[in-house]
């Protein structure tokens, strides 16, 4: 018979819509509205997994996100397989394939269960005490075995087929939790017209109302009230309803993060719809109506499949129309389980009630239940369970004042246990609110708030329906700035419980395994062992035993652990402390957190206006900061080396074309512009004439080089500053900082023009010849337009700032044109240069050519610890200036001391050998390790123009070592090289002025 444990009627499932999925290959039938857990139970499946350490058979403990045991691998199709899904929250649908975890070869017969026999050895922290000998065995033997045994499901192996979305949202009132308190809060807040977001992790709003089938509110059924409330909320334009949405993180300043599960439950989701959406809500006020979790009872073998929480039994019956068993024993220390028992009885199931409390403490509810014909035992304790892969009986005994009486075995196929309730204060605690222990309710309740939030309903320790509604309504109104309150008439709720810790037993304590943390296999005995060993802070207990550290993060176990520790140490519970609740409330996919930031949207790729041309002409690209820059232009059959050799020759012998658009550019404008430049750079600027350029060097206040670049004076009050590609944002920020905060009196404004201008460098002896026909309004003659000057004019009719500058040591120009004209001008120059063999070149050739001239690249020759003098640029420093940023630091004792590393050239003895950049330099390669290192190679290339390799290096006192042979590391040893001047080409420097 399909679904033998489906009750003939009842539940919210859609019996007209059957669904099928598989569990460990077996087809499971259920109805739309089922969770995987409820469908499994409808089919009588209780054994769904094996525990982490002992591989004990485990079933379904809860009905929600606090589930520690029923974890499954879920396959939703190619690229959509993921581990560790809680069966109690996965919505069942056609096409799911689910499998149990942590068992081999099968769930029913699991070899790992041998661990259970070894459990006397595998106690808390056992691994700290062994696996140490022999030493090499840890990496090779012990750890691999431990790792293979640990872990739950299998990580996805292929890229995710789903997409994820992100949404920033703002509201006046965020209500977390759509149970009675949350619904009432949302109603109260919505009435004020404020913007309200109501989120609930369940597919439907209502919380406990979804299974409180017998309850009534204000004279109508709970279901009718619920439906009306949702309809009313839905009618407000200002209300956003987010079902299937878990608020998982409460961050600073009311920044609350939620994940919405958009498509996992759909068989055929809308095309392109995201799997999940991260909501980042900034709320003026938050109402936390997050409910409470029921506590398991701690007794021997309380982890048998079929043993579940009492309220969960009730939920499976009332909400899903499923009987978790035919004969159910409820065992409780509180009143709420009586409602479950009554509903089970009403559903036609056999019921026995075992109350741990003495008759006098539960007389009223016991009497009511007895009236229904249910046997109620009071003043009991639980000794253990019968059965292995499914509970077959509960062993109970009367217990008074610690004396355990005669055992009785109650045959059953399901146990519903209740040790009371723990408010879900996770988000409150994350908000850094202070928790206060309430002895009457044996719970940590929200105390002093740290942010603009308030808790309502069970989250605040309020359990009866009318009060939940009233506190929720008041909280919602208050959050919305209203003072309205409302009383609700509701059917009474059975509340109140007596806190119990591990239950008294007459069994040998050494043999009792009463589980506290079901997933991590932590028993009460483990907790006591930890205490015996001196772990007394709850954080220590937790870390030593791993209690509360499983994927449920201790939702069902933390209070039991605390209580047991408190009892054992005989200290009041608050003195043990509560563990800090940290995000996320329930596990959140990386995908939701990443959102759209994948593939092309991971990080912007910045490209210049000339990028496409370069791509069309065979350029290889390199990443420089966010930019893609043309690296070299290989012709068919050329490798990088050949291309660079050709490009380098072309520039020296003819003319080359280089895209320098990525250089940072800043327009410095104002009557105090020159004074500002004086303060920011080491160089003098006052006397730089309009139309002239100067190489500028900029330090941080610590005296180390920050950036460099050519600066042109466009007018008395206007400078065109250039920076390195990667340094552009840094320099702009650095300048703005000083301008605004140190020298606000200077009349200067800064504007980034990096992307206003495309920059086309035309370099080489033929550069003038190439551009001359295209330029208008500028006299290009050497006399009228010498090296290091700038003119404004037009090129091909486009306005331009034409720089005569060179980073190659040859005649050169940098054409700045408005970016949208960049490609057209580039193409025009390229066409004009064809008769001269114009050659486009990339960054690699640029690097070689400048290295031939000994020009530094900030970030390559410098590394944040290099001064101007270190790289031979002390001469740039304006001696007359009393101050500039970084000047004072250049006078510090260790900055003026000898022995600093200085920029020199290195010529390898083997002319063809190109040293590794980053190679280290020693005087004596035969010295013992550790060796004394003198410095390192900063740049190294094969120079076609020099006919040999060249290298720049920073070497201790290097300028005093000219001509000395040093030894440089290579992949296989050392290579000798001679210290030389860092200028390898055209040392006289005549070519640049040609």
């Amino acid at each position, binding site marked *: 018979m399909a679904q033998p444990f489906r009750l003939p009627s009842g539940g919210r499932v859609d019996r007209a819509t059957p669904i099928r999925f598989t569990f460990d290959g077996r087809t499971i039938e259920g109805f739309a509205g089922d969770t995987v857990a409820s469908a499994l139970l409808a089919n009588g499946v209780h054994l769904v997994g094996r525990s982490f350490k002992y591989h004990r058979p485990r079933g379904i403990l809860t009905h929600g996100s606090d589930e520690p045991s029923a974890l499954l691998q879920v396959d939703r199709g190619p690229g959509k397989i993921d581990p560790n899904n809680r069966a109690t929250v996965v919505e069942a649908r056609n096409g799911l394939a689910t499998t149990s975890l942590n068992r081999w070869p099968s769930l029913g017969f699991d070899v790992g269960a041998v661990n259970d026999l070894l459990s006397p050895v595998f106690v808390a922290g056992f691994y*700290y005490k062994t696996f*140490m000998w022999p030493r090499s065995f840890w990496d090779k033997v012990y750890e691999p075995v431990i790792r293979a045994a640990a872990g739950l499901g299998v990580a996805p192996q292929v890229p995710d087929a789903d997409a994820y979305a992100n949404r920033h949202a703002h509201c006046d009132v965020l209500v977390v939790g759509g149970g009675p308190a949350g619904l009432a809060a949302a109603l109260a807040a919505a009435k004020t017209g404020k913007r309200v977001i109501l989120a609930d992790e369940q597919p439907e709003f209502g919380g406990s109302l979804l299974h409180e089938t017998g309850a009534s509110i204000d004279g109508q059924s709970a279901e009718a009230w619920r439906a009306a409330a949702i309809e009313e909320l839905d009618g407000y334009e200002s209300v956003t309803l987010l079902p299937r949405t878990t608020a998982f993180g409460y961050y600073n300043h009311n920044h609350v993060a939620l994940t919405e599960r958009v498509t996992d439950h759909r068989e055929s989701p809308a095309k392109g719809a995201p799997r999940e959406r991260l909501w980042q809500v900034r709320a003026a006020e938050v109402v936390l109506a997050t409910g409470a979790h029921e506590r398991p009872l701690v007794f021997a073998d309380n982890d048998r499949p079929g043993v579940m929480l009492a309220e969960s039994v009730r939920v499976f019956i009332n909400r899903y129309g499923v009987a978790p068993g035919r004969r159910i024993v409820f065992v409780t220390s509180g009143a709420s389980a009586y409602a479950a028992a009554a509903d089970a009885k009403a559903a036609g199931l056999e019921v026995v009630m075992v109350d741990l409390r003495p008759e006098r403490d539960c007389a009223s509810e016991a009497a009511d239940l007895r009236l229904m014909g249910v046997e109620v035992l009071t003043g009991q304790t639980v000794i253990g369970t019968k059965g292995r892969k499914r509970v077959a009986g509960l062993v109970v005994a009367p217990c008074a004042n610690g004396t355990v009486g005669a055992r009785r075995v109650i045959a059953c196929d399901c146990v519903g246990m209740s040790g009371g309730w723990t408010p879900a204060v996770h988000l409150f605690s994350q908000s850094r609110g202070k928790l206060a222990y309430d002895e009457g309710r044996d719970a940590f309740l929200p105390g002093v708030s740290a942010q603009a939030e308030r808790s309502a309903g069970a989250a605040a320790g309020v359990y009866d329906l009318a009060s939940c509604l009233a506190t929720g309504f008041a909280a919602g109104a208050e959050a919305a700035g209203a003072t309205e309150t409302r009383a609700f008439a509701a059917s009474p709720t059975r509340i109140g419980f007596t806190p119990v810790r591990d239950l008294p037993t007459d069994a040998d304590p050494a043999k009792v395994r009463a589980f506290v943390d079901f997933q991590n296999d932590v028993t009460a005995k483990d907790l006591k062992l930890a205490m*015996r060993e001196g772990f007394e*802070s709850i954080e220590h207990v937790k870390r030593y035993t791993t209690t509360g550290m499983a994927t449920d993060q201790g939702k069902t176990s933390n209070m039991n652990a605390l209580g047991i520790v408190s009892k054992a140490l005989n200290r009041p519970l608050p003195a043990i402390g509560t563990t800090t609740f940290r995000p996320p409330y329930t596990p959140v996919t*990386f995908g939701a957190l990443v959102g759209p930031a994948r593939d092309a949207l991971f990080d912007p790729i910045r490209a210049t206006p000339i990028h496409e041309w370069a791509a069309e002409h065979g350029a290889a690209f390199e990443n420089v900061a966010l930019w893609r820059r043309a690296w070299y232009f290989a012709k068919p059959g050329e490798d990088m080396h050949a291309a660079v050799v050709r490009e380098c020759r072309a520039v020296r012998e003819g003319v080359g074309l280089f895209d320098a658009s990525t250089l940072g550019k800043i327009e410095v404008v104002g009557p105090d512009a020159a004074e500002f430049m004086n303060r920011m750079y080491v160089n003098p600027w006052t006397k730089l004439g309009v139309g002239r350029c100067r190489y500028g060097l900029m330090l941080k206040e610590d005296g180390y080089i920050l950036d460099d670049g050519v600066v042109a004076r466009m007018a008395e009050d206007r400078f065109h500053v250039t920076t390195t590609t990667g340094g552009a944002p840094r320099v702009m920020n650095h300048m703005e900082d000083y301008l605004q905060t140190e020298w606000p009196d200077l009349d200067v404004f800064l504007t980034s023009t990096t992307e206003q201008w495309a920059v086309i460098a035309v370099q080489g002896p033929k550069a003038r010849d190439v551009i001359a026909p295209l330029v208008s309004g500028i006299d290009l003659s050497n006399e009228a337009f010498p090296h290091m000057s700038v003119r404004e004019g037009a090129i091909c009719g486009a306005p331009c700032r034409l720089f005569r500058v060179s980073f190659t040591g040859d005649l050169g120009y940098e054409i700045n044109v408005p970016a949208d004209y960049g490609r057209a001008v580039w193409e025009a120059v390229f066409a004009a240069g064809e008769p001269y063999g114009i050659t486009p070149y990339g960054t690699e050739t640029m690097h070689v050519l400048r290295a031939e001239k000994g020009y530094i690249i900030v970030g390559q020759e410098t590394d944040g610890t290099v001064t101007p003098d270190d790289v031979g640029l002390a001469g740039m420093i304006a001696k007359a200036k009393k101050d500039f940023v970084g000047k004072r630091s250049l006078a510090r004792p260790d900055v003026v001391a000898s022995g600093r590393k200085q920029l020199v050239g290195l010529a390898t003895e083997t002319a063809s050998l190109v040293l590794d950049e980053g190679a280290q330099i020693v005087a004596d390669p035969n010295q013992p390790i550790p060796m004394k290192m003198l410095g390192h190679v900063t740049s190294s290339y094969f120079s076609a123009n020099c006919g040999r390799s060249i290298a720049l290096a920073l070497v201790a006192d290097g300028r005093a070592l000219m001509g000395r042979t040093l030894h440089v590391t290579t992949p296989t040893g050392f290579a000798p090289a001679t210290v030389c001047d860092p200028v390898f080409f055209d040392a006289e420097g005549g070519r640049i002025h040609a």
Partner: protein
Amino acid sequence: MRRFSLASLLSEAVGGHQGWGRQWRAPEPKPSYDVVIVGGGGHGLATAYYLATVHGITNVAVVEKGWIGGGNTGRNTTIIRSNYLYDESAHLYEHALKLWEGLSQELNYNVMFSQRGVLMLAHNIHDIQSFKRHVYANRLNGIDNEWLSAEECKAFCPPLNISRDARYPVLGGALQRRAGTARHDAVAWGYARGADARGVDILQNCEVTGVRRDASGAAIGVETTRGFIGAKRVGVVAAGNTSRVMDMAGVRMPLESYPLQALVSEPVKPVFPCVVMSNAVHAYISQSDKGELVIGAGTDQYTSYSQQGGLHITTHTLDAICEIFPQFTRMRMLRSWGGIVDVTPDRSPIIGRTPVQNLFVNCGWGTGGFKATPGSGHVFAHTLATGEPHPINAPFTLDRIRTGRLIDEAAAAAVAH
């Protein structure tokens, strides 16, 4: 001290483990000690341990405001490596790494030091230059570190995406095979147990509220929530709270304390064989023995003692992780948390004397202190015992900010610690 071994474990198993005693005592503070160490993290406990074992100084107290190992020791991503560039740092971290290699046996406490290898990915030419500079410098310092091609990186770490089409393709990597991870809590507990067995008093829930100085200005003890505790020498090892403690002694420090966040995924079966760090995209990842992916990020931008940071730091980190390991988007974040890291101007530690006589400090480990724990404790114990720095920590003075002799690994390499 009851020795831990398989034999003792088995014999206890028979008796229901009733025979295990406390791993360390919970003593009342004595009126005074030879040395009081402020801060019961890994560094402070290691200092106490080596004072007792190496220097024979056992009249020592470790004063901890909360529970031992509850600060950065218990909050970090446990990466251990020594492939630092500068000689000073390389010697310090290599000293630590050598101690790690025998630590479980030395302490008779399994700290699960796992030499799984740390692979640092190069994503651009600058990275290649920088990493090769490290590889060569390490080699000459006798520290293992090797350059791998992208394909070799993939072979060493199969989950790695080395597609050339990636936003930041993997161009290669630097691998230190002796590097790895350890079980952070066990380090604190192991040192505590070892120190306690030799007579060191570990005083938990004992917060320092003042540093008492005599007329000459010398430190003579600490005021605490459990009363005054006299000391011939005081060593402050308070990580993120160092500025506050030193303030009590009138010493202003070149430190700023930032939130540093980390997270773990749900546990899964072994999928990740090593540690991978990527500086270009700012993230690092490994898998713990329990099966969780352990992922760390950069600091938040502002100073804070809240042990909490912004979600955007987490999302940014995961962006990067999922770019390099796109198959992990369906993994789930299980737990995230923050620590407080104290950062110096050059991001290297300060270990040594202070302007106050008899007051010593060991701080400024920034985001990388865990890996140094044994070495840090070892050299600081030497400093406290002799009043003089060990040759290894001699360069790490407070005075270097004045002279400009900074040890700036991060500036030199853009390498996260």
